[in-house]
């Protein structure tokens, strides 16, 4: 499963750490476009690895499938969960009622139906005749929460796993061993302060920004890592990649890790402007 984040506060925190992810859910107030989206925030596997290795996130592995979790909810727990939701909704309703009533009163005052001297009883009578309470009740909003309660207290496989076990499990998601090096490229760039985004659209594995993409243009198109000693640079790809870079003002960057020294080596390629 791709890593998703539903908590807006967590998303803010991640952004502070230079992980921006991709917002992927419909924005309810503007549900007919794809430019501005809402939670969930989808992260790259490399983001999760980085967070885990830097001890910034608690990675929880849930092996159970979602429907199994649902079906595993006992009546007792279900009642508890249901109560929590209802309590939250009731609280929200209380707030909404008060807000709407205040608003209503302010409106009545404005049009002169009531004034500061109007008594509570009079008000009640007025409300009843205009059916106001009922109107308010039926216009209360029920909102769907972003984050889950069901998953929060579920027991997970990772509880018994060490941090290294988890890293290994995460690394395993790179099914091709060679791609593990791509993470080290990611890490090296993050260490240099770059913010990384998925780069397929721009002909790379990542694109790199010198800071928050909200404020800065991207600088680099990063390729998947290649073997430092033995893998030849694909010159045809390099030519089209670097040509493309000229138009979109991004350098085409290729890199790999030297096994012995664990050192990452990057080269930035740019069309010379002639020939």
């Amino acid at each position, binding site marked *: 499963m791709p890593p998703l984040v539903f908590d807006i506060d967590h998303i803010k925190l991640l952004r502070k750490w230079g992980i921006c992810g991709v917002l992927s859910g419909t924005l309810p107030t503007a549900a007919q476009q794809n430019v501005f989206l809402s939670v969930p925030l989808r992260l790259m596997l490399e983001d999760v690895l980085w967070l885990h290795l830097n001890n910034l996130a608690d990675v929880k592995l849930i092996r159970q499938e979602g429907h199994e979790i649902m079906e595993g909810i006992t009546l007792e727990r279900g009642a508890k969960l249901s109560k929590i939701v209802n309590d939250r909704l009731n609280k929200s309703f209380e707030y909404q009622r008060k807000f709407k009533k205040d608003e209503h009163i302010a409106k009545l005052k404005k049009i002169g139906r009531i004034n500061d001297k109007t008594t509570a009883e009079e008000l009640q009578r007025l409300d009843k005749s205009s059916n106001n309470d009922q109107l308010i009740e039926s216009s209360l909003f029920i909102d769907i929460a972003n984050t889950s309660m069901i998953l929060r207290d579920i027991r997970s496989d990772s509880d018994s796993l060490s941090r290294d076990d988890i890293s290994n499990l995460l690394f395993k998601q790179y099914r091709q061993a060679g791609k593990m090096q791509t993470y080290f490229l990611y890490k090296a760039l993050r260490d240099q302060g770059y913010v990384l985004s998925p*780069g*397929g*659209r*721009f*002909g*790379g*594995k990542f694109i790199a920004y010198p800071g928050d993409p909200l404020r800065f243009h991207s600088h680099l198109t990063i*390729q*998947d890592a290649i073997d430092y000693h033995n893998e030849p640079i694909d010159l*045809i*790809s390099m*030519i*089209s*990649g670097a*040509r*493309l870079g000229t*138009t979109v003002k991004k350098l085409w960057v290729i890199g790999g890790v030297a096994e012995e020294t664990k050192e990452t080596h990057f080269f930035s390629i740019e069309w010379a402007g002639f020939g």
Partner: protein
Amino acid sequence: MSKGRVNQKRYKYPLPIHPVDDLPELILHNPLSWLYWAYRYYKSTNALNDKVHVDFIGDTTLHITVQDDKQMLYLWNNGFFGTGQFSRSEPTWKARTEARLGLNDTPLHNRGGTKSNTETEMTLEKVTQQRRLQRLEFKKERAKLERELLELRKKGGHIDEENILLEKQRESLRKFKLKQTEDVGIVAQQQDISESNLRDEDNNLLDENGDLLPLESLELMPVEAMFLTFALPVLDISPACLAGKLFQFDAKYKDIHSFVRSYVIYHHYRSHGWCVRSGIKFGCDYLLYKRGPPFQHAEFCVMGLDHDVSKDYTWYSSIARVVGGAKKTFVLCYVERLISEQEAIALWKSNNFTKLFNSFQVGEVLYKRWVPGRNRD
């Protein structure tokens, strides 16, 4: 004489083997004309009197070159084969350099052959250079404005101030650009001083008589050379001989595979009338022109692939973006071998190229970016 008409005449034939098209008219009621016709028919041939000579140079990789000026021109004029090593495509280096060094007293436009193209290419070079200079100027101007902005920020300027400044800068840049565009027309006509300057290096270009050394050759892609000996008898070497030059005697199938694939693709498009040229500048295998470069821009970029191969997505996406950026159509040309590797290498070694190439099949798929929003109604 309009340029279009000159080109019509110059590039009359799409291939270096010409059809027999100078037969006399047949007059039905005049048997003599029949006889004459038959005689002329008998005497004529499609074959070339003098085949084009090629040389092979290079250490690790083979470069196939044509060095004779007339033959270079012939291959260019009849199907746009080869590329001048020191030119964009047509080998015009000699004429360009003679003009640059003032070697020839005859004004450019009085010489035959390549003249109109030499001229355009030179003007083009000049305009390109002019544009380059302007771009640099523009960038300098822009950098200056950016520094202004940074200064404002460092002074702790307010957002409103910044917005005002930005607005002002945009306007001034627009004006700057406009002025530059006006200037281009004027400067393109002026003599470029730097160009006529003789450099020390240029002394080496002249022989003892003060003549320009023939430095530029026409280079043929291996597939072009194969086409010009195997498909049409134009070069003075046999297909077998070329094959021997390209690959060692004990080549395995995997060695020849990518050449054979490239050839099959090349032949496929050539044989349907396309002018096929290298697409390296766009990071792909071939560009397809209708007729040829003087007539139209290439509209298609072709990338060859084996039919059972899947590349990483970024491979497709970056080529597609370069190709799309040049407003061309991206063609994936898939090649399938219908015989076994053993059979294929055996055919290669017995020089049975006809049967070898005939055992391949090509299929095409167009790859195009799709924007959902533009396909709603």
